[in-house]
């Protein structure tokens, strides 16, 4: 039987209820591959793209540009070219007859973040999916588990995927102890113990990549594979102006130019994203933790720990992904790595590569693990 794929609006983050269609990236009749991006939509918080879960021909665009669609609502239909029009119409009619906005929002709401106390610290995490394969997503400096909102669900189809807030970040305790890479790596190891996971695939973004690498070097038996996205720890250079600016910015206008550096396309930085970052930065203890971390990890405007030798000594599979337009950590840190390391540079994308090229990063990661 020919496959018919219904593309619905995903739920990115707990508070998302709807999104506005910004534009279509593919025309009706276009041939699309699995994971290819079909349209751009904008929520209050963020602009994202919706990809097709399967390949075929884009047969229907079911939302106009500017239209506001509820979470779970039907956006498009992709099907093989030989599926008759009447069958497509029947699928759309059937969906619309059975679609209820409230029940779709509830069904899509999924898991809520949980908290666990580890070594006197509270760590917040979000768990999705099931399966004996476990993946841990580790965000970067100043980030939190929401950095993975375009990835988490897509990676959890056949695995158990945890995203956590590092100490000093998100809703985890703001105490970062000594503020060293080792301290953060130990916190992740303690988190694995707390949720009963003996070994996992680690995915680290930016500082989170260095944390994952440090953990793999210290306790290799706990790490089944490493995926390092725009990772720290692979060279000394880092945009010191960004780190300092992010730590000191006290208001929207001061923070905005720094946040814009995170993306190749600065339009992706919404006012809500800036407001949410400010809300985080204004929590008691955050400024002191960020200050300590930045001094320990990026003192003097350079990365203090380079783990290339440790990386060369690892036996696990390693995937390195970078956006070619990264303005925070230069893409050349992806060069000269051991031949066993698979390197993927995604053209035209910036530091937040897992958000800006979500479909592509998800596809690379899923392929890497299988």
């Amino acid at each position: 039987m020919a496959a018919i794929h219904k593309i619905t609006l995903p739920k990115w983050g707990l508070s998302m209820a709807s999104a506005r269609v910004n534009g279509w990236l593919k025309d009706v009749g276009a041939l699309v591959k699995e994971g290819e991006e079909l349209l751009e939509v904008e929520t209050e918080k963020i602009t994202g793209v919706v990809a097709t879960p399967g390949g075929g021909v884009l047969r229907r665009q079911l939302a106009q540009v500017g239209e506001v669609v509820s979470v779970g609502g039907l956006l498009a239909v992709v099907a093989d070219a030989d599926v008759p029009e009447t069958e497509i119409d029947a699928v759309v009619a059937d969906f619309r007859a059975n679609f209820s906005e409230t029940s779709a929002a509830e069904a899509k709401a999924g898991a809520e973040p949980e908290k666990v106390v580890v070594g006197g610290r509270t760590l917040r995490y979000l768990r999705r999916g099931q399966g004996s394969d476990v993946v841990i997503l580790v965000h970067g400096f100043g980030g939190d588990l929401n950095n993975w909102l375009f990835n988490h669900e897509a990676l959890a189809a056949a695995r158990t995927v945890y995203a956590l807030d590092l100490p000093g970040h998100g809703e985890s305790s703001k105490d970062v102890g000594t503020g060293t890479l080792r301290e953060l790596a130990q916190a992740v190891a303690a988190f694995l113990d707390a949720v009963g996971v003996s070994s996992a695939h680690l995915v680290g973004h930016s500082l989170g990549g260095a944390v994952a690498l440090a953990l793999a070097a210290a306790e290799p038996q706990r790490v089944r594979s490493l995926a390092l996205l725009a990772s720290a720890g692979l060279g000394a250079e880092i945009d010191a102006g960004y780190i300092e600016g992010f730590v000191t910015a006290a208001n929207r206008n001061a923070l905005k130019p720094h946040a814009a550096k995170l993306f190749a396309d600065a339009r992706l930085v919404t006012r809500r994203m800036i407001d949410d970052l400010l809300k985080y930065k204004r929590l008691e203890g955050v400024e002191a933790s960020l200050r300590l971390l930045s001094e320990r990890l990026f003192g003097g405007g350079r990365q203090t720990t380079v783990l290339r030798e440790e990386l060369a000594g690892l036996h696990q599979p390693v995937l390195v992904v970078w956006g070619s337009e990264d303005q925070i950590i230069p893409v050349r840190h992806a060069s000269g790595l051991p031949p066993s390391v698979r390197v993927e540079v995604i053209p035209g994308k910036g530091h937040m590569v897992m958000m800006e090229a979500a479909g592509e990063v998800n596809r690379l990661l899923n392929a890497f693990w299988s």
Partner: protein
Amino acid sequence: MARKITFRQAIHEALVQEMTRDPTVIVMGEDNAGGMGAPGEQDAWGGVLGVTKGLYHQFPGRVLDTPISEAAFIGAAIGAAACGLRPVAELMFIDFMGVCLDQILNQAAKFKYMFGGKAKTPVVIRTMIGAGLRAAAQHSQCLYSLFTHVPGLKVVIPSTPYDAKGLLIESIRDNDPVIFCEHKLLYGLEGDVPEESYIVPFGEASVVREGDDVTVVALARMVHFAQQAADALQRKGIHCEVIDPRTTSPLDEDTILESVEKTGRLVVVDESNPRCSMASDIAGLVAQRAFKALKAPIEQVTAPHTPAPFSDVLEDLYVPSPAKIEAAVTRVREYR
């Protein structure tokens, strides 16, 4: 943002966290403890709408019940602030400020200036504003513009639980006298509030909703009415930018002006009476500083120039409504 709490709980939590952090923070007011004519010491209502309930036993000796003499206890709070404490005084209704106005506008507001910067007055006066509780002319006013007028005072008007907590913490830590206005009909409103302590700085407006067609500036309960109107208008294809200044002194002029530069159209929603109001003040600001951007006359949606009526029917007509805001936005949108 793991949990939702009410506006009332957010204010209570700010008080608990600041009293825990800083032993110079005290709470005083009517019916905070004892009261109700009951003998001995007990935890009473916790103020007229229960915000301070529980503090009396949690912080022994730091929650003071006062006589029903605003002139006396507001004066005492201001004096205590000048001498090193950080009092949070609860003055039930802003309507009662009249009896202690000299203490506020001639004493507290002037100390820093008249003593050459050597004196500070870190007092917070928490007070209720707004109509809608069928409490009639003497318990329903929105007199924040009166205090915004006076240099030396800071005026804070939160509209959400998140802002209420962060702004009250900032108010307590601020070294100037702060008039902290709580709309009575917002106490039950729920919203996401972090468990940790945090601040919301003064003079930073919140852009509650972004839009390109019409700027709507609103305060306190009117922020929610403006949102309702904006929801209805969005279905008609009109996109409002809703701005909540959050503090009227200092006022974030830039955010308002930048928005009007974008939209060219302004509606100001203010529950208070229209003359010398925040509505007229913001309209004046925009007329002067963003005149060239304006594509339509500025609309003000306010209460009429009358006392708040006792009659339910009349009170409902007195308060600006989402329908009136929607009509005003439509008028400025369609103006040629």
